């Protein structure tokens, strides 16, 4: 079986891609995939949404451009929660990816397809975006490595925004060396994205993590499997000569609600551009008045979770609610940042489990409320909101064989020690790959 036909078969089985490349080159140096919110000239870009059906961007995202220039071939656009709205990649209009460790379970979200690809395709690297744990959560559920770098490290030109002040492009792979190899390829200043132009140079010099802080609050309300795996990981860390301290980080608890509010507020303004004009679905009834036309297209083609976020995001920035929710959340972001900065005065990193639970089954997810599934992101929201680099590394397996991950956070622009750690950890910890039968 060739690489390509094997990937097609994997896609068939696990619903990895929203769309695969029509006729990929087979002689390229490596294959990569990208979440469907990164624009690609050659492949439809729909962000998991029917409202973008038929949308073929006229430009490649910066990161895709860089990967191609480095010799890569874009093999497909991975499934994601519609416009990033979701925690389990079940809100996709183009297939729900299945967890390679248990097909009844979620790959995590929003970038579920990318983590799934990294788990089942040999030697694979996938580009994805991180807003509210959207890289670390799926990486953890699928037993792979996922890096969300510092906000502003990688140009977002060509990223279809969810929450512009939080979004960052990152990498998912089963091999931390691949992440270390490709991060410099896609980093750097890009005049087309001003937020990328304030960064110091990326230097990967193998700096090591010597001290780690574990916030006490992160250890409560964990599922049993997660708690015990995390405990043994801390022992392993100590065995590597890393000092582990338990610390108080009380402000982190504001991160998840603040992240939800800011993300919804910003997303609702981004989503305002999808009205059935200029691109994507445009098959509404043109005899309607323009606002009725817009409403009809948006009603028809946006999914339920996206609509909920539009309503929430619009509410929190209007009238009196603006001060109470949106402005307050902006203040909370500063609190979270200073809380981290304080700990980084005498620690190299902050460590928590990535997710408080193992990947839930689809039938469990269908019973969850939006608030309930948001709550699952309480450990991944803090670094994303603070714009700090964070990586999820596999750290154990539950009784039923599901992967568990832990998340390490460093101060702004300190991707180097995260990658060194991931690499060192890879040689200490015995990573299991899913058994894939085709």
């Amino acid at each position, binding site marked *: 079986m060739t690489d390509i036909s094997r990937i097609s078969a994997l896609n068939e089985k696990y619903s990895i891609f929203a769309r695969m490349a029509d006729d990929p080159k087979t002689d390229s140096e490596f294959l990569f995939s990208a979440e469907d919110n990164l624009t690609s000239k050659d492949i439809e870009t729909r962000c998991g949404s029917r409202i973008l059906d038929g949308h073929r961007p*006229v430009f490649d995202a910066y990161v895709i451009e860089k990967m191609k220039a480095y010799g890569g071939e874009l093999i497909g656009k991975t499934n994601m929660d519609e416009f990033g709205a979701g925690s389990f990649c079940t809100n996709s209009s183009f297939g729900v990816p299945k967890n390679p460790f248990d097909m009844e379970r979620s790959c995590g979200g929003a970038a579920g397809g990318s983590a799934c690809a990294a788990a089942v395709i040999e030697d694979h690297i996938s580009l994805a975006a991180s807003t509210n744990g959207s890289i670390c959560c799926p990486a953890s559920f699928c037993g792979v490595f996922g890096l969300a770098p510092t906000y502003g490290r990688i140009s977002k030109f*060509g*990223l*279809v925004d969810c929450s*512009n002040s939080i979004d960052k492009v990152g990498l998912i792979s089963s091999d931390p060396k691949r992440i270390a190899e490709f991060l410099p390829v896609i980093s750097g200043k890009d005049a087309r994205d001003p*937020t990328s132009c304030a960064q110091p140079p990326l230097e990967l010099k193998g700096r090591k993590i010597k001290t780690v802080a574990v916030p006490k609050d992160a250890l409560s309300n964990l599922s049993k499997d997660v708690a015990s795996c995390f405990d043994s990981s801390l022992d392993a860390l100590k065995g590597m000569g890393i000092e582990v301290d338990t610390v108080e980080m009380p402000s982190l608890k504001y991160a998840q609600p603040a992240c939800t509010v800011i993300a919804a507020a910003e997303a609702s303004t*981004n989503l*305002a551009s999808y009205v059935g004009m200029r691109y994507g679905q445009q098959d509404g009834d043109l005899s309607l008045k*323009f606002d009725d036309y817009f409403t009809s297209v948006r009603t028809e083609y946006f999914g339920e979770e996206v609509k909920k976020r539009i309503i929430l995001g619009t509410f929190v920035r*209007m009238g009196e609610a603006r001060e109470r929710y949106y402005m307050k959340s902006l203040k909370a972001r500063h609190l979270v940042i200073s809380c981290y900065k304080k700990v980084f005065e005498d620690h190299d990193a902050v460590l928590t489990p990535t997710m408080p639970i193992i990947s839930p089954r689809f039938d469990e997810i269908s019973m969850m409320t939006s608030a309930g599934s948001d709550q699952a992101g309480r450990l991944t929201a803090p670094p994303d909101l603070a714009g700090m680099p964070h990586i999820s590394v596999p750290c154990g397996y539950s009784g039923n064989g599901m992967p568990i991950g832990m998340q390490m956070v460093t101060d702004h622009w300190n991707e180097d020690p995260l990658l060194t750690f991931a690499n060192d950890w890879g040689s200490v910890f015995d990573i299991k790959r899913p058994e894939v039968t085709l």
Partner: protein
Amino acid sequence: MKIGLEIHVQLPTESKMFCSCPTTDADAPNTHVCPICLGMPGTRPVMNRKAVECGIKLAKMLNCQIPDTMWFSRKTYFYPDMSKGVQVTQFDHAVGSKGVYHIGKKPIGITKIQIEEDPGKTKRFGDKSSLVDYNRAGMPLAEIVTDPDFSTPAEAREFLKQLITDIRRTIDLPGDGERSIRCDCNISVGIERCEVKNVSGLRNVERALTFEAIRQTKILKAGGKIERETRGFDEERGVTFSVRKKEYESDYGYIEEPDIGIFHIRELADSITIKESHVTMAARLSKEYGLDEKTANQMVLTSVGLAELFELIVKATGDVQMAVSWTRGTISANWKAFEASGKDPAGISEILVRFGKGEITDVETDMGIKSYMTGKDAKTVKEQNADLEHIIAEYLDAHPEIIDEMRKNDKTVNRVIGHAMKETGGKYSSSDIVSVTKRLLESKL
């Protein structure tokens, strides 16, 4: 009656506010567009530095407070010509606020000045279909918001007239084509106010406001209530009409624009000096050189270049009286032709320096200046001058009473102008005639 204005000025940049599309008039609809100004998914704005500089200049001109940092906000409302579904504008950290601008002695408060992008244009056809042209989408604008400090429509018009002249000068805004200045007019006779949107032209602003004042007064007199609303202005019929019901700023759901970041503008603002406004320049001239206000205003309003030349002559000759007399006479009479020629004004002051030293006579000076300014050779000028001088001299000789009257009353010179115009078929400008007459008068003393 309370009136406040919101004035939109298109900033004279070469490219749009967030992309490199040109700002020149396009040949066809939707040709000056790109993925960024069309708001295609995945694009993001990159700020045009020139637009920020223009904003700072205008903020300085309006004596605004300029903050150390400013940023942009997103204003959301759904409209087909808003390509991104949001407008990037400034809400609570604008480039300038709390300014003041004088019309005559009256101060008008400037609430704020903000930089923002223009949406596209919707063209309606018949009553069924509309087409959208995004050529204008993303053009940089400055919006100047005044306090409700005007008490009559005429005062608002006077303000606008002066403001526009100053704006054009401050940011080198050409006075042509699509680069018009649009105005939203807020007016309340009682408590609640109405906004008349998108009025263009000084005359229309006054008309729209006058119509609204009468309309609101009538409603209140009849015991009715004014409802807060947005209205449009029908230029042909001269009436305002209701467009939509009340809207408040908080209905727009502003959030901070996350893509373009925070601008630290203190250093930039400090490094920018703006040209003097007409009003300030006139005031300075009258103070510095002891000119009466009318003369100073007239000089500046004819052209700032003329006033600058006046200062140059004073500097070169040290003689204010002489500079005034030549500037008002021969020089302003030939100013238009000179301005178009693009010649160096220093040439004029050099001639006057020689005159000051007594090297040339006043007739020679007059001819020299005319010849330099118009590019006509000295011989033609001399002939024309002689021609005019001859006519005026004959007239004055025939009417000696005029000479006496003229010494008492300046306006008598109008009779000379009338006569000379008639005789020459309007070949000479009135200021030419005045300057020759004055010279002849002086020689008769």
